[in-house]
């Protein structure tokens, strides 16, 4: 995990940051138990107000996936150029007892991805701003694989 003097989360409400052991933040309805990600002000299932904020499990399994092979147009914002763009994995991770969250995957080789694969949260540097601030985003990586900076 890149953690320079200046870093911020891509969105302050998505995950705990700065944090040596970050976790995604979700909502859990106090009335019906329904989980949501990212945070919501009202339960999207039953409408109850003020769901509690919970740290979502850091580990789960790959539920669905694809590889994004072309560089998205705006509003995509990374430090990449069309020349340096590298395909990235995207999928849904099933977090036991909570929900399935959409996430980037650190792995973009389809031969190394399969449904049911054990995955864990890995916060990474998504882009570096002109003043050197690292903008951190969340991803999931196959368990047992070293995260690349």
């Amino acid at each position, binding site marked *: 995990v890149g953690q320079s003097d200046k870093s911020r989360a*891509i*969105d302050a*409400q*998505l995950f705990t940051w700065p944090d040596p052991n970050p976790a995604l933040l*979700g909502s859990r309805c106090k009335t019906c138990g*329904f*989980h*949501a*990600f*990212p945070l919501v002000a009202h339960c*999207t*299932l039953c409408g109850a107000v003020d769901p509690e904020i919970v740290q979502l499990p850091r580990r789960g399994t790959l*539920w*669905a*996936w*694809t*590889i*994004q*092979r*072309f560089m*998205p*147009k*705006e*509003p*995509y*914002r*990374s430090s990449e150029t069309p020349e340096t763009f590298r395909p*990235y994995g*995207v*999928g*849904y991770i*099933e977090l036991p*007892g*909570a*929900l*399935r*969250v*959409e996430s*980037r995957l650190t792995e973009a080789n*389809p031969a190394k991805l399969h*449904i049911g694969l054990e995955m864990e949260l890995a916060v990474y540097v*998504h*882009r570096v701003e002109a003043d050197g601030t690292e903008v951190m*985003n969340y991803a999931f990586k196959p368990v047992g694989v070293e995260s690349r900076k």
Partner: protein
Amino acid sequence: MRVAIVGVGMHPFGRSPERTGLQQGAYAARLALSNAGLQWMDMQFAYGGSYSSGNADSLGNELGLTGVPFTNILNACATGGSSLLAACKEIQSGAADIGLVVGFDKHDRGAFNAHPSEYGLGDWYGEAGFMLTTQFFAAKIQKYMHDYGVTSDTLARVAEKAYRNGGLNPNAWRRTPIGLEEIKNSLMVNDPLTKYMFCSPAEGGAALVVCREDIARRYTDKPVFVSAAAMRTRLAGAFEVYGTSVTLGNVPNASEQASRAAYEMAGLGPKDISIAALQDTEAGAEVMHMAENGFCEHGEQEAMLRNGDTEIGGRLPVNTDGGCLANGEPIGASGLRQIHEIVLQLRGEAGQRQVPGNPRTGYTHVYGAPGISAVTILQR
């Protein structure tokens, strides 16, 4: 009381640099009016929509400023279906007897680049690289293939059929057949979907003249009746486009909800349908939508495509005009393009691509971001 479709018209889909989107809408409207033997001044109301080509009621500048109550409808891929639904209610309420439904669009090349704020999502969603509908469809079919044993051969067969059917449709954009191997081996875009398994944003227009069932025969001897028109949005926790999360367990999606509502409204079931137009923004979508709309069990598509069941001469022809794959997707016009095709088929006017056996009942289905679906059931 059912509503009757008594006139249909279309501007060819594809790229038409000589016409604006609005002009393509006007072209389609004029054809639909003349198809019903009517004029714009005869219309008591109009509903229409366009995503990228301005307000549909600007058509007054092209067709005439008659003071007609013209309501703009913008409902993503369900824009056409929602316009027809509104028109049906207008007529069924007794407020009007006859009116126009129209949709048109002209999109830039390349994938749509919607902004997250239009969908109630934070900027991070776009910045991080999730704001692409293609990703959803690819991840969904990837999972579907894993769960139900559907293979990439079946995806290629869907695309191959689309371009072949497009070749029989003078209004289609992509009219050159492409072989199975070429489709499978074309550039991988979002695994497992290759370039030729995707439709592209495009241009075009489509229009319908609709009226009260009991006056339909004044305008045509081949009226087609709207037995059901239903539209649904997503439920909490369902697996839908631009979904940041999905609940554990299995929540029916917008297509399944709209389909169920339409069958109930028409008092019909999937076995009563002789021809279907199903949203095929990519090859996997047609496969999954076959089951979600009740036409087969999950996984049966593999054998159905191999057996040619969804061909023009098969037991359930699907996307006889080439679908989105061969026509491209001008969002405002795309759902009405499906209805235009079903009307031609039920009238027996579909030319080289006419389904044999005098089909009686047709079905249309669209699905789009952020989990919205419209279904119609049409009968002659």
